């Protein structure tokens, strides 16, 4: 897990979210349907979807954590790492870019000093370029904590950021229970080795299986420069299949006699 996570009181979060989660479950014929609403409920309180939140959702819905995490990871609005207090999501789709969104987005990034999927050092702003927000008549547009800001200009961006820094902006900041890291993007985790494989070299390391195969191939080529002919699938299946059947039939005959 992310090293930036700190211990915090999850019981208080649970006290707030659990009754709501139980109510959400009753709205659906099958309780798994409440997964997205429950994750939303946790994110509304914590500002992100924490591992504890995913564990709790799994327990309530009889789902393994792996299923919860897999589902949460599908949706871009669930943040599985802490984010800034203001989630700035400008549009980068067609109607906005032909109306100057690349310029306003570059300006916004410049003012923040961060790039796509990054959070500022002070934990105040997160920046993510998003796809069409269904507000193309007021392009370029963006969302701040999912509230719309229309007709972006550098001046409007300056005023907006100043108000956010001063704490006077009219969209409430997201709750922040943990200091965010530079990025909330969750990539693949480095794969651990199973205990039995610890002393075995990786396939492509010198002496590994892949390496040995490669060496064997080179040695073979040195002995016999004729390249190995790979036969077409059909031929392999039909000819080899017949040969195998014949061989098996021969064995059966032999064993019968």
């Amino acid at each position, binding site marked *: 897990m992310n090293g930036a996570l700190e211990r915090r009181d999850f019981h208080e979060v649970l006290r707030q979210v659990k009754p709501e989660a139980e109510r959400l479950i009753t709205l659906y014929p099958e309780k798994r*349907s409440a997964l997205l609403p429950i994750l*939303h409920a946790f994110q509304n309180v914590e500002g992100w979807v924490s591992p504890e939140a995913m564990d709790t959702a799994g327990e309530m819905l009889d789902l393994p954590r792996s299923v919860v995490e897999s589902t949460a990871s599908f949706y871009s609005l669930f943040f599985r790492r802490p984010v800034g207090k203001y989630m700035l999501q400008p549009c980068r789709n067609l109607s906005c870019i032909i109306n100057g969104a690349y310029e306003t987005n570059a300006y916004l990034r410049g003012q923040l000093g961060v790039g796509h999927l990054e959070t500022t050092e002070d934990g105040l702003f997160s920046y993510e370029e998003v796809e069409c927000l269904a507000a193309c*008549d007021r392009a370029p547009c963006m969302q701040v904590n999912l509230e719309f800001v229309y007709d972006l200009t550098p001046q409007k961006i300056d005023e907006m950021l100043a108000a956010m820094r001063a704490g006077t902006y009219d969209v409430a900041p997201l709750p922040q229970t943990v200091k965010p890291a530079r990025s909330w993007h969750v990539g693949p985790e480095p794969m651990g080795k199973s205990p039995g494989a610890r002393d075995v070299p990786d396939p492509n390391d010198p002496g590994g299986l892949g390496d040995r195969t490669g060496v064997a191939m080179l040695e073979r080529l040195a002995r016999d420069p004729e390249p190995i002919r790979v036969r077409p699938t059909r031929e392999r299946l039909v000819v080899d299949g017949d040969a195998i059947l014949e061989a098996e039939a021969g064995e059966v005959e032999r064993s019968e006699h």
Partner: protein
Amino acid sequence: MPVVKVLTAGIGEVDLRDIDVYRKRGGYEQWKRAVTEMEPSAILDMTMKSGLRGRGGAGFPTGRKWSFLPDNGRPRYLVCNSDEAEPGTFKDHMLLEETPHQVLEGLLIAAYSIGSNHAFIYIRGEFKRAYSIFLAAVEQARAAGFIGEKLFGTDRAVEVTVHRGAGAYICGEETALLNSLEGKRGEPRLKPPFPAVKGLYGEPTVVNNTETVASLPHLLKHGVEWFTAMGTEKSPGPKIVSVSGHVRKPGNYEVPLGTTLRELLELAGGPRNGRAIVAIQPGGGSSACLFAEHLDLAYDFETMAQNGTMLGSGAVVFFDDSTDFVKAAHALVRFYAHESCGQCTPCREGGHWLEITLERLIEGGGLESDIDMLLKVSNQLTGINLCPLGDSIEPFLASVVKRFEAQFRAYVSKPEAVSAR
């Protein structure tokens, strides 16, 4: 000007979010009439005869969609698709925020006419405000006795669940939407079986677009003849068209289907700064471009199809002669690559390769052969995926590469690097 005020009536004049205001204008009367005076089959019959076609993108006749439900005694579900995310489309966003009761009334009527007593509405995750507004509308309607048990003194009952997505364009595809509503990853299902046979929780289900259901109260109120008098024979009724791009007054315009693209352009204030419109994308991000010579075409399902494109969700983007179509194509391809659910290799890999090919072209490292490759790859990833997302990459890209090939070639010979975004 061919503007009509049906679904958009009252927007911007009164606060239609207030149930009392909506009721004063005749709201929920059709819902009451449906439950107390009409058999579900009568509403199905009207919808069939009206020729109302789905407003979400495919344009499938709504009545026929309903008629596919098997009569097997299983519970049925109605799901309203409000996961509007097609690039350029912003009509459902407006309907949900401005006239939630109209959508709700249509949703209830649709549920009643297919014999469902549990309706769902799937609202796009980004529409947090619309979600709150719609939740409030449902509570107002419940308090007024329009949702729940014993409707209008009959033994009919209906329940409505408002569900919010969490950011995934693909959930607008109906089977992906159903998976998402079931609490799963929003990955499209293999079809058949179609949702009409096996949909939500494996039961017969109808998924209808927001604008489609919002049309139903008006159809019931004014009748089939009124409805078919508007529009063309195969595309009857009013349609909200989201006009954006290089026009002076972008916005939602409600017009009878069959209005010409030039009339739409004029409605939207015409081109800016005396520039000329060179291309039109008539049906959302997934549709092929039309060009200046097509401006006098009628905007309806069949004319668009005859001209190699589609009406889609009713999003018209106008491009003037200042447009960099390489960057425009890059933005749309990047969108599809980003939104691919990853199940089908052609869409997942093809979209990504097209994106990085275009990015390289823009950033100054493109090759002459890239232009043919764009056409070849986009063509080869079409028609072989579970859902239409992968197939949506080719139309715009291929149409602008063919038409504005010089712009693409100019990037190849441009040695200096330009940022792709």
